[in-house]
């Protein structure tokens, strides 16, 4: 199966390992992620102001372009891009909204292309995934969804309070998924730039909670959650002596590991 794939800026820079692992992992279960010939930055955060049309244009253009390339589904791996593109898709499903936005662009009609997150593609593939596993993971993992895969409700890839896709994936890969309450809690997101200390505090609570609930590592699909959790652990150590670092993985890295791919985990995770 071939699906259109929208990478977004961060998967080409800070989160290269996420993309690289995804290409291999999805291929192993028969899914070819075909990068769009043409794509732009989605805008990262969806504008919530009713009258702010301009901030929605980039996302909508990306969706309509993917449709022009002949695809029914547009798969996104970055959680933030997913959120922005999916909300934009919901927005243009309403024809009066699309009409308003067309004053600013030449693109054609919306014919119903669906934005999907990479995890959604795995929902019905668990049996295939189990069969592909060569090296069961064994360890205990906390699935960390963060905000953008689950909220607002209209775009949630799973139950917004009790999601299970990532847990099911971890179990299918031979790992143990721990139950913990902060799986859908925000890491502080872009506050990392304007209010780093606040994010450090969030990261401490999130990681400690995962640990107290038995996790040995955290799994995510959001490059900003990944960055914040990874980067801020050093700061956490300064504030909370005795704090032990916890390894982080993109879910695609875990898939590769269990599939026994030759994938190199990347610099960020060389056995911490």
């Amino acid at each position, binding site marked *: 199966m071939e699906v259109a794939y929208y990478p977004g800026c961060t998967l080409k*820079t800070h989160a290269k390992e996420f993309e690289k692992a995804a290409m291999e992992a999805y291929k192993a279960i028969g899914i070819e992620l075909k990068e769009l010939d043409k794509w732009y930055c989605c805008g*990262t*955060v969806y504008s919530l102001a009713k009258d702010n049309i301009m901030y929605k244009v980039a996302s909508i253009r990306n969706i309509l372009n993917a449709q022009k390339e002949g695809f029914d589904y547009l798969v996104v791996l*970055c959680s933030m891009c997913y959120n922005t593109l999916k909300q934009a898709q919901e927005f243009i499903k309403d024809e009066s909204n699309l009409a308003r936005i067309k004053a600013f662009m030449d693109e054609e009609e919306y014919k119903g292309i669906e934005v999907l997150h990479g995890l959604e593609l795995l929902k019905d593939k668990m049996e295939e995934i189990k069969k592909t596993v060569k090296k069961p993971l064994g360890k205990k993992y906390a699935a960390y969804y963060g905000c953008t895969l689950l909220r607002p409700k209209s775009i949630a890839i799973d139950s917004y309070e009790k999601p299970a896709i990532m847990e099911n994936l971890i179990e299918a890969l031979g790992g143990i998924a721990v139950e913990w309450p902060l799986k859908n*809690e925000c890491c502080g997101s872009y506050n990392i*730039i*304007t209010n780093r200390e606040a994010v450090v505090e969030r990261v401490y609570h999130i990681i400690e909670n995962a640990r107290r609930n038995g996790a040995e590592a955290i799994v995510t699909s959001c*490059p900003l959650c990944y960055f914040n959790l990874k980067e801020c652990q050093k700061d956490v150590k300064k504030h909370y002596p005795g704090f032990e670092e916890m390894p982080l993985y993109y879910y695609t890295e875990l898939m590769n590991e269990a599939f026994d791919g030759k994938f190199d985990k990347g610099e960020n995770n060389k056995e911490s």
Partner: protein
Amino acid sequence: MLLEKVEEISGENLYACYQCGRCTAGCPMTGEMDLMPNQVILAILRNDERVLNAKTPWVCAQCYQCGVRCPKNVDIAKIMEALREIKLRSNVNYIDLKKINRSYPQIAIVATMRKFTG
């Protein structure tokens, strides 16, 4: 009046709020806030313009936890956005873009530009 402006930009009915505080209970950023999310709504309902100088809307990370847990379906994230927009549209940027450290991931930088500058 402040209330009308907020309603116009957010599209939300603030009078639906009955001050139960679930938005505040679920908010991950309250530790950094000077006004709790439910207090922000109350201040807007009273047309108290001091809320425009509160730190709260600038700490909101648009995680939507408040909105999904609101029993009255008030999307508080949209209200926070309206407060930011009112400020940014008066030609006041919340941060100086030139001072942003560019080693951060693009998603963080672009989000910062969109949420903190007009």
